């Protein structure tokens, strides 16, 4: 089944992105397709390459990049929300791309399910 994901919160502050990540990994393990992961509101902060968590903590940004590389995931960051929060191509982590909200709507149309993770 094709599943689209919407993430509305940033890393570390809320568990939402952790839950979304573990959901995606489980869905991929079951053979489902993650049609797109869309980052909106503070969710855009999941894409900052400037993130440097302590050594003993999970690296949320790198974890998304790695999952995207392994499974050819489409990680899309909302452009308006990103610019508001200082996320630009210069500090975008690997595997992410910045685009418009149309990508979220399109994912909602094309996927069989859309699951929202937020606060």
């Amino acid at each position, binding site marked *: 089944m094709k599943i689209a994901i919407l993430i509305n919160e940033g890393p570390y502050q809320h568990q*939402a992105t952790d*839950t979304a990540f573990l*959901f995606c990994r*489980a869905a991929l393990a079951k053979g489902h397709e993650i049609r797109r992961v869309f980052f909106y509101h503070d969710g855009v902060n999941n894409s900052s390459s400037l993130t440097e968590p302590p050594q003993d903590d999970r690296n949320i940004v790198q974890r998304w990049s790695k999952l995207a590389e392994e499974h050819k995931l489409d990680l899309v960051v909302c452009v308006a929300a990103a610019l508001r929060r200082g996320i630009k191509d210069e500090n975008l982590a690997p595997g992410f791309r910045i685009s418009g909200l149309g990508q979220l709507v399109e994912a909602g149309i094309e996927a069989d*399910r859309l699951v*929202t*993770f937020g*606060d």
Partner: protein
Amino acid sequence: MLHIVNKSPLERNALDACLRVAQGGALLLTEDAVYAATRGNAAAEKITAAMAGMKVYVLGPDLDARGMTDRLLDGVTTVDYGGFVDLVTEYPTNQSWL
């Protein structure tokens, strides 16, 4: 449809809002919402009442993380992330009560 709640019922009204509107289907409690399905919680009665009309699930890893696994209410089914995925695919629509 599948209703997903992720907030403690003692902090937010997401669970109340969900239960007020939901017309059957399933309820999945994740993150801080898992406290709602534990014995002695002030919201436990609401969960018990909800079970008359809908199936109630709790995300096990969130229950474990919070040290509440041994207090889970009878009748609530524990799922892992794979089970979460199965619920999403089983129900045609889902709503996260943010």
